[in-house]
């Protein structure tokens, strides 16, 4: 049975898609069979992986279409990484689903038989039906956040959403992932202190601000393919070890699952 991780923050631009694509491709490189489900109408998962957008998600979930799971899963250029793509049609899907009974369980139901080691949900930056369905289907919640006041408020909102669904969800917080961390700015430092004081051990090692993330998505490549030694992956040099970065976060999640 797959372990399911939802990557979610109601605030936009915090690095959800980059995190989803980098972690899922990182696990695929480690030999896991990974399915990445794009729940965002922007369809940026496909863009980041260099494949065309598609209405796969709508075809899977729309009651009038309901295509089988294997027909909507696309392979990526990486061995072991598969995706369910999304596009603008997902917006219409949300309207259609609003009239369906037990709609919060829709993702959990369709993915029940999925034969993968790990399933990642890349959620949209909004509170909607797919957002709730992702929390209900997920085992763990990973909350990326920029280190600024508004995004940190988004963490609190995500946790409140999780709390409000506790009767129908077994989802737990895997961690709060500070992104766009700049170790030379006081604001980043103070917001990290604030996060650590509030959420303690839930705060994962931060991801350094790195232009290569944007460059990689422009070329439709994962960070592992585009620039494997970039600091968003490897973190900061700290004496004889490295701190932060997606490699360390991958290790933390591996310990958890």
């Amino acid at each position: 049975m797959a372990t399911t991780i939802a990557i979610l923050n109601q605030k936009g631009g915090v690095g959800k898609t980059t995190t989803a694509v980098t972690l899922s491709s990182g696990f695929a490189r480690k030999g896991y069979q990974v399915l990445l489900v794009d729940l965002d109408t922007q369809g940026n998962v496909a863009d980041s992986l260099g494949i065309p957008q598609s209405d796969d998600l709508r075809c899977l979930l729309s009651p009038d279409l309901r295509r089988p799971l294997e027909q909507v899963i696309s392979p990526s250029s990486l061995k072991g990484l598969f995706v369910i793509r999304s596009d603008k049609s997902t917006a219409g899907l949300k309207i259609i689903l609003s009239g369906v009974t037990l709609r919060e369980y829709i993702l959990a139901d369709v993915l029940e038989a999925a034969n993968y080691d790990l399933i990642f949900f890349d959620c949209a930056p909004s509170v909607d039906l797919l957002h709730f369905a992702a929390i209900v289907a997920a085992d763990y919640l990973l909350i990326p956040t920029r280190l600024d006041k508004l995004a940190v408020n988004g963490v609190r909102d995500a946790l409140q959403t999780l709390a409000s669904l506790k009767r129908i969800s077994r989802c737990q917080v895997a961690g709060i992932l500070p992104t766009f961390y700049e170790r030379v700015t006081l604001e980043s430092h103070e917001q990290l202190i604030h996060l650590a004081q509030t959420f303690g051990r839930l705060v994962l090692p931060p991801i350094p601000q790195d232009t290569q993330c944007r460059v990689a998505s422009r070329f439709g490549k994962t960070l592992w393919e585009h620039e494997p030694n970039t600091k968003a992956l490897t973190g900061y040099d700290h004496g004889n070890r490295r701190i932060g970065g997606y490699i360390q976060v991958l290790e933390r999640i591996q310990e958890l699952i």
Partner: protein
Amino acid sequence: MKNTNKQGFTGFDDLSGVDPAVESLLNQGQRRNVESHLPKNLRSQRKKERERAQKRLANRVNLDLPVDLKKRLEILAKKEGVPVSQLVAFLLYDPVHQMETRMISLWGYKTSSGCRKFEWNIDLQRHAEEVLRNGEKSN
């Protein structure tokens, strides 16, 4: 493995402690903050000290020793007026060479560890007692 915990929500009652990586970054940020208020010459002096300390880190090892052995080493180092780490390095050269050339082995001292990381544990207590007994005999 599937999350089988039926709690439904992470218990936020135990959030004490911070991830070690986060703690390191926070300490680093704190240090930068303090140093930014220092005069320029003091700042460069601190930087040099830090670089020297970081170079030393490559040689540093963190080992767990039996408490009594640690105390004996500290007493010896104090008596000889040398750093403990140098004394330990001095004392280790001979047995390490003997083990590399198979003059000594761990045969008879290994016990099953029961953990996944290491197959065996060494019965240090037995070794300590034997060393003590041999020492008494030779005296």
